[in-house]
């Protein structure tokens, strides 16, 4: 009987220690989770800003003058060939047809 009691008390003690350890680990994990979520949040904020900036830089108002300086021009009817034209093989690029 006594041995049983001692064992039971020991068991209770050790599980208490185990629990304490578990609790501590959980808190640590929680803390690192917080840090990670904060990082994710910050990354999301950065992504939002970068997406907005990218869209702002790619706005047609800005791209068009740049493209024109590179010698590009809006697509027009004379750049397009109807279906049979392709089959006949008379494909010309805009630069060859202009000059």
């Amino acid at each position, binding site marked *: 009987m006594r041995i049983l*009691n001692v064992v039971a008390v020991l068991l209770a003690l050790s599980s208490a220690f185990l*629990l304490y350890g578990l609790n501590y680990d959980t808190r640590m994990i929680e803390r690192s989770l917080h840090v990670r979520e904060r990082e994710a949040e910050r990354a999301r904020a950065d992504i939002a800003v970068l997406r907005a900036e990218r869209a702002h830089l790619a*706005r047609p108002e800005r791209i068009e003058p740049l493209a024109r300086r590179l010698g590009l021009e809006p697509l027009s009817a004379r750049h*397009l060939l109807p279906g049979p034209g392709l089959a006949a093989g008379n494909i010309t690029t805009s630069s060859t047809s202009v000059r």
Partner: protein
Amino acid sequence: MSVAARIAGPDLHETSVAPRSRSRMLALVIALAFAAVGGQLVRLAWQNEDASTIRVSMMSSPANTLARPDIVDRNGRLLATDVQMPSLYADPLLIQDADEAAERLVRLFPQIDVRELRQSLADKSRRFVWVRRGLSPAMAQRVHNLGIPGLLFVDEIRRTYPAGRLGGHILGRVDIDNRGTGGIERYIDEIGASEAAVGARLSARAPVRLSLDLGVMHALDEELAGAMVRYEAAGAAGLVMDVLTGEVVASVSRPGVDPAVYEDALDPSRIDRIAAGTYELGSIMKLVTVAMALEMGRSLDSMVDTAEPLKAGRFTIEDLHPLGRPMSVSEVFIHSSNVGAGQLALSAGAATQKAFLQKLGLWSALKTEVSSGPAPQKPQQIGRIEQITLSFGHGLATTPLQFAAASAALMNGGTRVTPTFMALDGEAPVVRGERVVSARTSALLREVMRRNVTDPAGTGRRADVPGFEVGGKTGTAEMAAKGGYRKKSILASFIGTFPSSEPRYVTLILLFEPKGQDVTGGEITAGRNAAPTTARIIERIAPLLGVPAKSL
């Protein structure tokens, strides 16, 4: 061991207690200990569950701020998005010298009223005063560098519009708490696509996809800007609409509004001339009049008496270039004869004419996602003179968007079109609206629209673009002013469609108060300015819209 010894200890000395009750007590104590352990386990499990669902948010915005979905164009290009920006607030209790702090802050933000700021910073009873919301990171750094204690930052959600002025009228705007107060932004709140910012994540909401195409918008905007310079016009507006779905692919009104600039929206000269302004559109309305005549059984070749000017009371309606002979219905359209249109309306009768305008949706306000639309200005009663003026587009002022929708219905085979600024699912089959005119009428209208451009005498001949079968009708309306009409200030318009054998889009171009130029032979009629502008626009946008060019 010591615990066990303590529990067992007294028993060794006090032999009076029965060993039986002793072991019972021990069992009870141990049971209690295990119960405590169990309880702790349960508590921990609960706590863990909470921890895994904790939302960490840096956005400590005020409770009434909204997090909004992105707005993208039909091709997914970003038009509006939420970003986090630092907002500057002050804790007056921590501010040592309110005067100095206010002065130094105002040097950075000249828009702030110094006296007001000084007053609120000196008010020690408050712990929270907004100084400036939505700073750029660079600006926040400069404030930080001032080193004034009591100035603090909080991250807030702010709306940005990367495309700038393009589409500003349609997007609308948001207030300081990121709530929609106009346009699509208000619509988003109405349909509940936005949510409270507290605990919300950025870009966690499905984007709102508009029917607009940013590329087409830009082409339209640029050509309109060019036309304003070329014809010295005071303003210009244009729209492109899908004839089957009613999707507005592009809508531009110059000068536009930048949704990020609050003052823009209040400036009456920046009104959205497509969806918010109503105008007497002039001769493009003859499209409707001819449609009505065709619906009543006339053919394009049936003759109309246009030999004499029309008389109605003290008014006499004359043509600009009278032929002095009867005209066919198609000639009335192509020569834009006011007398002919008037005769067609008179022979239809006032009741029929009104019913037809109602059927096309030109008699009542048009509600879209962007606004509930202004009510058209229409005559109280329709007598002889009203019938005649309505037939060539005077006496009834509607929004250009409304007229474009009516024209789309006339072009697409005759079914009603409901204009929308939201992209429809490309996969889903197009749901046709109810029939407004017969397929025959629609086919004949397409033919006469095309003829008006191909005919050497047609008013729309300068709108032609080789390969895209442009059809259209010009309108030159005198603009209404106080006490009558101003002869010299006109509204030149062009309703176009392409390709006219099987229309996919209608275009409506408006030029406000163009002047006579050398290039227009000194004329200000729409055939000399709005028509060639339409040609330039269609040439640019047709390839963007994937309309194949026919062999020349």
